């Protein structure tokens, strides 16, 4: 940890991301849907090897209302393969340490299913450090916040271009791990260009926090990652990864794609910082 003072009170995920950010590194958090293929955990290893700074692990839900077609399809595929919270976490348990934090993302129904306490405890047992729940806005988060904190799970909150400034401050303050900046008013999914709203939102978040800010939704190419890096501390890349996986790309193929993103982020870092 290069800057232990700033990270005081922060959990492991946040400390990890802060420390990497503080080296000037653009953060890369690729996403994979748990259970998407028989050997899906190999993707996690490949991501780590390709220079991911954290990995977002989606627990597939039957009704992914904030996801575009790619992740919808990935969820359906995984569920059709029999994926479930229990089985995905079980798959993780045998894994060696990845060296980077695992952040689970899923819809709140799956959190409620066994109850927030059991859910967070299970995540913790599986070695997960953070949790993203896209349909749990800050004002509904009370029920989960303390439980997650107690279990050592950092509950990441999302901010959107539509979030008014005072609320943004609350989100930034109550978020743990990092702040997930939703780049655009839309669902997950690849886009031709980074939304204009991305820059503005990131600036607005920066005004109220020094927590790491990762920009997600629509970041799909090295160019877009580079551009995102100009505003945010890093990017979340989901649909661009999952489209490749759905098209049959294995861990090695993904490693190459992630490497290109890594490289773009590093270049931008070299230039800008």
């Amino acid at each position: 940890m290069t800057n232990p003072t700033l990270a005081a009170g922060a959990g492991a995920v946040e400390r990890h991301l802060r420390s990497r950010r503080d080296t000037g590194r653009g953060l890369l958090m690729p996403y994979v849907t748990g259970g998407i293929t028989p050997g899906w955990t190999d993707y996690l290893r490949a991501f780590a090897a390709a220079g991911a700074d954290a990995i977002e692990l989606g627990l597939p839900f039957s009704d992914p209302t904030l996801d575009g077609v790619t992740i919808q399809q990935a969820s359906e595929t995984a569920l059709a393969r029999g994926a479930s919270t229990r089985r995905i976490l079980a798959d993780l348990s045998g894994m060696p340490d990845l060296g980077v934090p695992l952040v689970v993302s899923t819809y709140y129904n799956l959190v409620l299913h066994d109850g927030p306490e059991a859910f967070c405890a299970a995540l913790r047992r599986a070695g997960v450090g953070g949790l993203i729940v896209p349909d749990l806005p800050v004002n509904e988060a009370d029920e989960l916040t303390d439980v997650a904190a107690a279990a050592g799970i950092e509950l990441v909150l999302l901010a959107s271009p539509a979030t008014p400034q005072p609320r943004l401050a609350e989100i930034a303050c109550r978020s743990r791990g990092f702040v997930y900046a939703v780049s655009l008013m839309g669902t997950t999914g690849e886009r031709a260009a980074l939304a204009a709203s991305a820059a503005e939102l990131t600036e607005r978040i920066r005004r109220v926090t020094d927590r790491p800010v990762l920009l997600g939704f629509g970041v799909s190419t090295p160019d877009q990652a580079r551009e995102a890096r100009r505003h945010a501390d890093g990017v979340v890349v989901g649909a661009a990864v999952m489209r490749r996986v759905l098209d049959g790309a294995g861990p090695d193929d993904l490693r190459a794609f992630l490497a290109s993103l890594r490289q773009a982020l590093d270049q931008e870092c070299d230039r800008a910082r």
Partner: protein
Amino acid sequence: MRDMSPWPVPLDGTMGEPRERGRFGEYGGRYAPESLVEACREVDEAFREAWVDPGFRGALARLLAVHAGRPTPLTPAGRLSEALGVRLYLKREDLTHTGSHKINNVLGQALLATRMGRRRLIAETGAGQHGVATATAAALLGLEATVFMGERDIERQALNVFRMRMLGAEVVPVTTGSRTLKDATSEAMRHWVGATGDSHYCIGSVVGPDPYPWMVREFQRIIGDEARGQCAAELRTGVPDYVVACVGGGSNAAGTFAGFADTPARLVGVEAEGGAGAARGRLGVLHGCRSLFLQDDDGQITEAHSIAAGLDYPGVGPEHAHLRDLGRARYVTVTDDEAAGAAVRLARTEGIVPALESAHALAWVIRAAGDGDLPSGSTVLMTLSGRGDKDVSTLKELL
């Protein structure tokens, strides 16, 4: 299923405004993606203002009267009552313009959308009734309309699809999941995220993030309020012993119950056997609210199955979950066959072809009158939520 036990009747303000954060007991809330939270807040604010604004109330009342055909009659089901040994009255939402109670809510939301400066309505639809109502209100007020509908429902409800298109609405087929109402709702929400600036999401039932469950119930309470007055004029007892309505998301039931929550009337919500969120769901969150949903052992939402497209939803509005917990309302289920049989029976005895959704409520009345669950001589108010024109091809295959 016998109901001989004493029936708890709390008279104290159930079905008033929800508690803070849109809560009905532990249900409700605004479990919306952050991108929609602000839009929900705006709807909430606009609705609260409008609902106490006599100008808005007056404009809505006029639309409901001159365009939608309110008040709807209370029809004594004479021949059927005699056969069943109860006194059955039908609140005739089937006689509204577009043929179901959905228009009550839609006119309210469309007027609100205009007030909010929105140019377009987004809607999900199952049976197509809400979609037709939305397309109608949009045409009437000069708005655009985009309606999401599951591919399976598009097949089952072809008539309504064409009605929507004829009304100028864009009908977007939803090909994901079960290709029914649940998926159409998800898709409408996804679409709304990208369109909050100029579009209002016009949810069709008492579901979704706060303020929808409350707002939609308020727009539908005209059913119960009218019926309450009509019962007062028509019944010796003033209030019926039972108030029965079918429950998909639960809007016609909520609107009906709202008129009787402070009376001793026993409230009965009738769900489809294969879509019984209230009767068999467990706690969960879907489409923006915390309520009861059909789920598998892994917490995945399961597909509902009902002959009635409008009941083909795996959840129920949060207020119904609360009324169930309170014991203020009871939720029962009937099968596809019972519903189809009830539809034919009503047609043959009263000359009314009901929507298959509404036929569920009747099927329970028939069954309960037969097995004594409804004591003989009881007065029963049943909301006939819609007409059956849309369902005749389905029934044709069955009969």
